[in-house]
């Protein structure tokens, strides 16, 4: 069907971006701790049930265990959480959602979600996105790019096909034309809601060449299930070659690119 289908199993999908190892580390540590807590707790629970089951001639004791023992689980959980917050959660969040890479060091892409497509725009060699105007939107021009703006001349728009070079940060400006969607690539461990009226930056560095899948993670209407796209991560040379080929035809001809309308 597609090169991406081998990426998934019963556990976490393969890791294909710089975010993946960091997020997986957290998931593994937290789940290991969860299992440990739950198993120890269950042993204690079953022990209590067996030891203190109702037996003839044995009355319940009114005294309780000391308060100290009840504070212990709280303290353990709190300590674990404080460690996670300061050494894992806040640094990771800062890296993935607060410290964006510089635009000039990154592959810049604009993604505009719509029911039920991902419109992907590359700025072309000038590195600038042309002006857009919602009034210009039609089936041939899904983003409403203004052809009179010189910066828009070399812009290239593809639908549901995201091509990226490996090893270089990708900086996406994510928005939506209609309702809230959510941009999710499981192999990259990247997810962000696409909100209409807002342009949210998303960034990551692909670390592995291959085929991956974009999916919409936020209910966006009747076609939510079929809203998907393909990601191809190339070597930098292949990526440049692809971009040159793809954006070669003049602006007028580009408009004929097939657009899936569901």
């Amino acid at each position, binding site marked *: 069907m597609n090169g991406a289908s081998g990426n998934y199993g019963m556990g976490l999908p393969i890791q294909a971006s710089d975010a993946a190892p960091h997020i997986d580390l957290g998931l593994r540590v937290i789940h290991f701790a969860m299992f440990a807590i739950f198993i120890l707790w269950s042993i204690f629970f079953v022990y209590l049930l067996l030891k203190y089951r109702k037996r003839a001639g044995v009355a319940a004791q009114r005294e309780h265990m000391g308060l100290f023992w009840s504070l212990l689980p709280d303290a353990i959980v709190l300590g674990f959480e404080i460690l996670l917050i300061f050494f894992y959660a806040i640094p990771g969040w800062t890296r993935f959602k607060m410290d964006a890479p510089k635009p000039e060091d990154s592959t810049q892409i604009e993604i505009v979600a719509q029911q039920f497509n991902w419109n992907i725009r590359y700025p072309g060699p000038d590195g*600038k*996105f*042309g*002006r*857009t*105007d*919602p009034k210009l939107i039609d089936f041939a021009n899904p983003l409403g790019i*203004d052809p009179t*703006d010189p*910066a828009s001349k070399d812009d290239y728009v593809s639908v549901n096909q995201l091509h990226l070079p490996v090893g270089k940060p990708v900086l996406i*400006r994510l*928005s939506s034309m209609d309702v809230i969607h959510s941009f999710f690539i499981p192999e990259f461990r990247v997810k962000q809601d696409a909100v209409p*009226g*807002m*342009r*949210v*930056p998303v960034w990551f560095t692909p670390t592995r060449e291959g085929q991956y899948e974009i999916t919409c993670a936020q209910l966006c209407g009747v076609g939510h299930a079929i809203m998907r796209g393909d990601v191809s991560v190339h070597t930098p040379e292949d990526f440049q070659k692809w971009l040159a080929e793809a954006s070669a035809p003049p602006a007028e001809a580009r408009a004929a690119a097939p657009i899936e309308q569901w």
Partner: protein
Amino acid sequence: MSDHKAHSEAAHVKIYMMVFGALMVLTIVTVLVSYLHLPPALGILIGLAIATTKASLVATFFMHLKWERRLIYGLLGLTVFFMIVLFAVPIVDNHGLKPNIIHYDQPAAEEAHH
């Protein structure tokens, strides 16, 4: 079910009239200030201060909060706390989001650079 203590109603009525006068004066002041067309920040500050004063007067005297029990204070304190939370988070968020909001009316060049 009158729960009123021994305080005399006549004294209350006198207070009510004074509060009434104060409310009227404050209303006139806030309208007059608005005719100065102050810069928004200052205007909002003054308008809000006057409105809060007026509301406090109504609550303290007309709603008898001055003579009310601690439980009611507690209830209102709790409400005000959650109200502040309800105000604060969306407003702080809104402030943080400003750079991300798209304004289509801006000129082309600015739009392109973002």
